[in-house]
């Protein structure tokens, strides 16, 4: 039998352990080890396996020294005691120390408080759907621990405490939802937060041969797209990202120019869609071909129609954009712009340069030349592969004449070079092509493996035209993702994951849930709150409406709680016999004072009889029948019915 004090220690320690485990991978390992060691020691003492330490001055002094050392250790390993990460580590070791000296129930309460703070730290570090059940478990455990700590008499078993707190939490869910929806999300920050230096995968602002094929094995989502209306055809799903315009013969880079501005007019149907972008730590954004205007105030459109954000994207970001698949330039490209977009290193890729001059001489217009180069790509036995082999400084020459193998980046680079060498403005666009339709969530998921590179070429009269040489070399790339196309070079596990039908479905379900979670829960902010109000029928909601909605929700919840928590008072429901007898006594109430609580039926009948001698016999008979039915054995249905008839016929 565990004493209630030991039970309280154990409950608090277990909750602490659970929240320490939540921080696995989010806090330094040595902090976790110290915390778990202290918890183990505490559990052994509470379980009676180890003797409890005596409170001696020496022990307290030692504890003080350990405290100081641990604080210094945290300060050294983080170079600061400020900020979330260092604060979490500090909280971990302080919680461990509290466990070492915990003696009374209040200490256990403090340990549970530390556990809840650790939970907060874990939630701030990761908001993924996977971790939610674990967070909820810690909340549940904490509440149960609070009950166990408060219970000094041992009347509440751990199981009862778990059940009770589960019930309380379930009842709290509606309030949590109402608060989540309507509690005004005050903008701005109360204290500064550091930006985590995250290592992310994805496109960068430069492209050398092979840099995109490294992404082909990355299954992480880059972004998700929900179309508000009909989606464009699959072959048009070119998600434009960083635009590269500076070539050194091997690598394309993005160098911003102020040299020219080209205005365009949008043609054709607009496509409206919402993109939920995973953090990239970069400023550029992705959009379908040409965006009409910047979707948000903290984003802008560059001179080359590159959509960018003012600040690097460090958290999941959602924006709505409108795109057109066709455009027309308002005027010719300026001289400066033309010069800028045709620059090439003089001494690189001589064979390609020669090919360009030779081919260009054969055709009358730039457009004819551009088409001819595409034909050349198709007819010269170029092979589309994830593994094009090594390259040289003259990378385009290698691709076109030596290895004849390449990935999208190689072909885009070669094509742009061929255009520029013929004096035609051209640039590289990196981004993503296609995406996987998720029927569960009704959205398109674009993965890192969908990374692609293509070119934009300025053709007189048409303006910047999207030309994708890879589409000529490997026409299938437009219709299917890289996994279907290159399943032979992917590891078997990925092949199973990405091409097995059942797994595809499971993956889509899971991704759908995650996407919903991201978009509807994690990304939920004041704007989404106002959207909810709009959907509830409020014309132009502001924070005051939020306040009203919050108040209404709170009131409704409190009413519901107080109603459903009203004690059900045990009441014996009167049966047929009792009901009939009650009817009789109600009739007789006109004759005599109501039957007293301690008055038996026979006594009552005698009293009534004394007041109304004419009724005496009848009432006495009724009373004795009632007593017989009530206290006798096995009243039959007929007996009861007869008694009821007697009562009905009683006339006062």
């Amino acid at each position, binding site marked *: 039998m565990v004493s209630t004090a030991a039970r309280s220690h154990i409950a608090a320690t277990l909750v602490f352990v659970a929240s320490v485990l939540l921080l696995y991978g989010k806090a330094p390992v040595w902090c976790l080890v110290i915390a778990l060691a202290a918890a183990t020691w505490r559990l052994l003492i509470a379980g009676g396996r180890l003797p409890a330490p005596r409170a001696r001055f020496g022990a307290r002094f030692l504890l003080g020294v350990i405290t100081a050392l641990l604080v210094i250790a945290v300060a050294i390993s983080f170079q600061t005691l400020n900020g979330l990460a260092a604060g979490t580590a500090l909280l971990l070791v302080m919680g461990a120390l509290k466990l070492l000296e915990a003696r009374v129930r209040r200490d256990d309460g403090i340990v549970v408080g530390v556990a809840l703070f650790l939970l907060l730290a874990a939630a701030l570090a990761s908001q993924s759907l996977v971790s939610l059940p674990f967070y909820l478990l810690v909340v549940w455990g904490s509440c149960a621990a609070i009950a166990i700590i408060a219970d000094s008499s041992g009347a509440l078993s751990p199981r009862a405490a778990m059940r009770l707190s589960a019930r309380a*939490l379930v009842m709290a869910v509606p309030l949590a939802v109402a608060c989540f929806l309507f509690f005004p999300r005050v903008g701005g920050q109360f204290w500064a937060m550091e930006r985590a230096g995250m290592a992310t995968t994805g496109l960068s602002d430069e492209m050398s041969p092979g840099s995109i094929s490294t992404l082909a094995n990355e299954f992480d989502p880059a972004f998700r797209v929900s179309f508000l209306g009909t989606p464009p055809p699959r072959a048009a799903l070119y998600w434009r990202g960083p635009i590269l315009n500076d070539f050194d013969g091997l690598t394309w880079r993005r160098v911003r120019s102020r040299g020219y501005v080209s205005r365009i007019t949008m043609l054709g149907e607009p496509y409206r869609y919402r993109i939920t972008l995973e953090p990239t730590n970069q400023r550029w954004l992705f959009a379908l071909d040409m965006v009409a205007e910047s979707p948000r105030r903290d984003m802008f459109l560059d001179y080359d129609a590159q959509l960018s954000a003012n600040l690097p994207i460090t958290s999941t970001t959602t924006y709505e954009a409108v795109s057109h698949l066709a455009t027309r330039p308002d005027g010719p490209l300026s001289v400066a712009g033309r010069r800028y977009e045709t620059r090439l290193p003089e001494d690189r890729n001589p064979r390609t340069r020669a090919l360009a001059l030779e081919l260009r001489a054969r055709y009358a217009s730039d457009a004819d030349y551009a088409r001819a180069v595409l034909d050349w790509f198709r007819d010269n036995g170029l092979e589309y592969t994830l593994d094009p082999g090594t390259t040289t400084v003259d990378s385009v020459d290698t691709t076109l004449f030596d290895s004849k193998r390449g990935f999208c980046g190689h072909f885009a680079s070669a094509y742009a070079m061929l255009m520029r060498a013929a004096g035609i403005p051209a640039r590289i666009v990196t981004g993503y092509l296609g995406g996987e339709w998720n029927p569960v969530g009704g959205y398109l998921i674009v993965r890192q493996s969908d990374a692609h590179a293509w070119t934009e070429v300025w053709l007189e009269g048409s303006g910047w035209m999207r030309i994708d040489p890879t589409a000529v070399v490997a026409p299938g790339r437009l219709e299917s993702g890289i996994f279907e196309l290159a399943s032979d070079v992917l590891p078997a596990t990925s092949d199973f994951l990405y091409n097995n039908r059942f797994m595809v479905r499971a993956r889509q379900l899971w991704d759908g849930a995650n996407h919903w979670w991201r978009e509807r829960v994690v990304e939920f902010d004041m704007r989404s709150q106002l959207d909810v109000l709009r959907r509830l029928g409020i014309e132009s909601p502001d924070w005051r409406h939020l306040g009203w909605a919050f108040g209404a929700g709170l009131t409704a919840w409190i009413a519901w709680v107080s109603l459903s928590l009203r004690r059900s008072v*045990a009441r014996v429901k009167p049966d047929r016999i009792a009901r009939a007898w009650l009817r009789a006594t109600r009739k007789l109430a006109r004759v005599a004072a109501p039957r007293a609580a301690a008055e038996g039926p026979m006594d009552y009948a005698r009293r009534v009889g004394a007041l109304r001698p004419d009724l005496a016999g009848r009432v006495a008979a009724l009373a004795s029948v009632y007593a017989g039915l009530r206290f006798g054995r096995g009243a039959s249905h007929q007996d009861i019915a007869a008694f009821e008839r007697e009562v009905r016929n009683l006339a006062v």
Partner: protein
Amino acid sequence: MHLSGSLKATLRHALAAWARRRQGEDQLPTTIATGRVYILPTRAGLAFAALAFVMLLAGLNYANSIALLLTFLLAGFGMIAMHLTHRNLVGVTLRAVASVDAFVGEHGRLLLTLENTADTPRIGLDCEIEGSERSAVDVPARGSARADVALSLVRRGRMTVDRIKLSTPFPFGLFRAWTYVHLRATLLAWPVPRGRREAPPETASGGSATAVHRVGDEEWAGLREFRSGDSPRQVAWGAYARGRGLLVKTYQSPAAHQRTFDFASVPGDVEQRLEQLSAWIVAAHARGERYALRLAAGSVPADEGNEHRARCLKGLALHGTGEPW
């Protein structure tokens, strides 16, 4: 610390006085209605609220939906905890109050019978009287339980209790709900049995028909009405079974001896004299002797047994108060 303590006491008194004006006096049995249950967070509850507030600030600061969701869940839990604590007290019935007298310096007791008509148990009901320790009791569903509140007696005489406080922190200890029941209950604080004087010698007296059964030399003297304090062993169960009510068999000792304890014959100041008398009564009772008590305000004829002892001690306790006994 001291200042805040006295401030707290002042506030508590003000609240109690206000509650008395509001509720008026109660009569047994009293069922605790919603309108008279007060509730405030405990220290743990305040700490919990502070924690939730910090979590809220962090969630808003980092625009972290999950932190906010967990915070709201905990806040809702706190409010449910308040309701649960409140309902743990509402509807409980104080059925009976009995008091147990004791000597000064010991603990007198107030026995409170609490009843629960609900079909869930009520756990951790604390009963207390001003100046007493809390006495916790669990009342089962559709049942009753007795709380035993110990009151330390510091002064001889009648101690009047006019307010019983029922409270509960159950189930989470984040809130304490409490209520006042305004009932009058009295306890007697008997003088401490103290003093070294010899008891007055036994004197022979004519036998008394009221003496109950004692082992030894006795002869049958008939039946008399049952009085509280009589042992069930002396009850004439046969007579009871025949429907004659509770009667006690009495015997007559052929040579009954008794002592008479007279206030006037004891030297010393009033309290010392009362304490000496108390000591004699306790000793005589322990030996099973017959004794009589004579005080300024009245006297108790010679007798024995628990009831007699209580009567004598009551006389000592109320000596000089002018209260009849």
